[in-house]
């Protein structure tokens, strides 16, 4: 999905014209050109989409209907008795239609059903099973969510959140009767922002790193003056409690793959003593991917730290209570997101949680343990300092690279990697899960994934490469490696693997065409330094009869990948299931 040129269709059973305008004009990234199906023709439009009768297949379809779309629920609104199973059957039919229609679009976002706030459902009755509006509405939304749960193309957006944010102004009967607008402009503004956040999340553009100031940001008080024992953190203190909750919210984000770092003007030993020793600290040293605690300019420190973590500045959010520091970083590093930050510390958690820059379609095992790999990276660097040479150090790491074929069990993570990797990335292709799956299934295409581990950590699935075969040669369609394992020789191991596949397949040449972006110079540099490649402009050619050495310090294991190329390519086309990929 190319976020710069997204085509979007909106299907709604109310007048959603202002949403089309907002998606284009609200100033948030990315601007989306949307078109609107005639109001009230949602089911017909979905059927036409399912049957490929739309003139164009949009990248994105947003479906937003009132719950009355489900005819049984309409009866419920008239307090007519409805059998629960019939109601849910209608929801199932609607969900099936969404899923079927989604096969012809990049992604389908369905907005959950809601009722206007003034529809109380007679209070006591509302959460009762038989006639309860709120009860049945919740069941319908839950059923819909369960139905599409495993579908990689259909996602639900929670409208209840938007409505509660807007409050009583969310629904205005005058707008409905005068303009068939089911929701106020404020709700549509929320919707537009959420749709864009979802698009960014699906495209892998969510922010990855939060850099935090310490004094009066992570805790209350100045550690260098007050001492860590006297910081406002926890205890019977409203501000202390607020800081603890803020830290808990940050820690929770790390479990979804977001990294934390510290950029603070402080004495490092003093600050780290607070982090290590304060009994109410939620975040400890291992919760941070890295830090720069010194008296240097914060913008310079951010550049330095982000480089160490192999990330781009565009993946960073910087939080600081000091407006002058925020202004400085905003001015020096425009790619870094520097949100205005509340003056009242009790509002920090709210400010963090309402940010729309960490959205993602799924959380993988790698996401959940990412921060640990950075902690182990510090140990690894510490080990490096104890060795005389890089070769000795690399040998001591005990690096293992496991190659496997793209399968159902690793598709999610592989797609995430494809869409998030910038630096060591040959082509920087961006595809949705289903687009990637479709591509991998085409004849002559094969996708391989690579897990990396060493004595300190299991980095998880951090490498990906794909081949596209022509008559006499094999083209490398993707060659990418997470920045977390750059510099250990893993890229050379993957290249060795690809050359072997091309050789065994009888291809005379392995071709890598480098596609330049603003951020993938590291990839060009790697291909440039591999002896054995002939370079012609941005095209690198390897004579496949020649072997490509596997780095001595790396053990390469094939998991379900036969060294015999024809077999593995067949398996790749069939997308071998996880169970068949065991060693």
């Amino acid at each position, binding site marked *: 999905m190319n976020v710069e040129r997204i085509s979007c269709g909106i299907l709604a059973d109310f*007048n959603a014209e*202002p949403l089309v305008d*907002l998606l*284009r004009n*609200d100033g948030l990234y990315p601007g989306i050109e949307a078109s609107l199906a005639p109001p009230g023709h949602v089911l017909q439009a979905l059927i036409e989409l399912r049957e490929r009768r739309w003139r164009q297949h949009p990248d994105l379809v947003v479906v937003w209907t009132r719950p009355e779309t489900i005819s049984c629920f309409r009866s419920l609104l008239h307090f007519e008795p409805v059998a629960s199973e019939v109601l849910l059957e209608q929801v199932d039919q609607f969900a099936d239609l969404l899923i079927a229609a989604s096969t012809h679009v990049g992604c389908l976002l369905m907005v959950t059903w809601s009722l206007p706030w003034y529809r109380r459902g007679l209070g006591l009755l509302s959460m009762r099973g038989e006639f309860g509006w709120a009860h049945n509405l919740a069941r319908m939304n839950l059923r819909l969510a369960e139905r599409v749960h495993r579908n990689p193309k259909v996602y639900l957006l929670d409208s209840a959140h938007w409505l509660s944010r807007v409050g009583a102004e969310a629904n205005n009967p*005058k707008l409905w009767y005068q303009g068939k607008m089911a929701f106020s*402009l404020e709700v549509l503004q929320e919707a537009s922002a959420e749709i864009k956040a979802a698009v960014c999340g699906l495209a892998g553009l969510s922010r990855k790193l939060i850099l935090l100031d310490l004094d009066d940001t992570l805790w209350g008080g100045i550690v260098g003056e007050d001492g860590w024992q006297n910081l406002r953190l926890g205890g019977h203190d409203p501000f202390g409690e607020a800081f603890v909750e803020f830290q808990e919210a940050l820690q929770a984000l790390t479990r979804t793959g977001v990294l934390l770092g510290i950029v603070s003007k402080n004495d490092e030993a003093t600050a780290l003593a607070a982090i290590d020793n304060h009994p109410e600290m939620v975040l400890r040293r291992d919760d941070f991917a890295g830090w720069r605690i010194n008296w240097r300019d914060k913008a310079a420190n951010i550049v330095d730290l982000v480089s160490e973590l192999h990330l781009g500045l565009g993946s960073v959010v910087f939080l600081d209570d000091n407006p002058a520091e925020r202004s400085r970083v905003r001015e020096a590093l425009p790619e870094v997101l520097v949100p205005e930050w509340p003056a009242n510390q009790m509002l920090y958690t709210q400010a963090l949680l309402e940010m729309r820059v960490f959205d993602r379609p799924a959380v993988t095992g790698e996401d959940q343990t990412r921060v640990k790999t950075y902690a182990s990276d510090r140990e690894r660097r510490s080990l490096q300092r104890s060795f005389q040479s890089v070769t000795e150090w690399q040998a001591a790491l005990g690096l293992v690279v496991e190659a496997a074929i793209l399968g159902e069990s690793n598709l999610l993570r592989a797609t995430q990697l494809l869409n998030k990797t910038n630096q060591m990335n040959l082509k920087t292709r961006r595809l949705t899960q289903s687009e990637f799956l479709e591509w991998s299934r085409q004849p002559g295409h094969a996708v391989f994934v690579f897990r990396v581990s060493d004595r300190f950590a299991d980095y998880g699935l951090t490498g990906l490469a794909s081949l596209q075969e022509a008559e006499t040669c094999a083209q490398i369609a993707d060659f990418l490696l997470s920045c977390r394992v750059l510099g250990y020789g893993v890229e050379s191991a993957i290249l060795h693997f690809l050359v072997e596949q091309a050789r065994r397949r009888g291809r005379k040449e392995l071709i890598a065409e480098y596609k330049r972006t603003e951020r993938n110079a590291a990839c060009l540099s790697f291909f440039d330094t591999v002896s054995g490649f002939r370079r012609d402009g941005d095209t690198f050619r390897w004579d496949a009869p020649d072997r490509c050495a596997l780095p001595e310090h790396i053990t390469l294991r094939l998991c379900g990948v036969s060294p015999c190329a024809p077999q593995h390519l067949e398996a790749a086309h069939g997308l071998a299931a996880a169970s068949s990929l065991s060693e």
Partner: protein
Amino acid sequence: MSNAPNPASAEVAECVRRSLHQILEVKGRRPAFPLPDSTVLIGTSDALLDSLSLVMFFAELEQELQRRWGVSVDLFAGTGLEDNDNAAETLGTITDGILGLLSDHGGVSGTATERGLP
């Protein structure tokens, strides 16, 4: 309405313009400010608003008047602007209409000419 607020007419005019600006921004139009009273809102080919935008503008304006001064006026109902054939034609006439409604609620200080707008 003995406790009714007493907004100055200039404040009301600014409130009307702010609500209008918000609707125009949604449409991707950002006119140079201040818009003159003679700005045609609806009814001609060069009018700023279409019918749906006018509905949204009225709804937004009602909310804004409620938020700022706690005044509940109904721009859609028979007592509001809808009955007056001319009220919604230009920015000036709608502002005057709002001032009239607020005056009925017992709370506008100053006159329309004191709005200080072109």
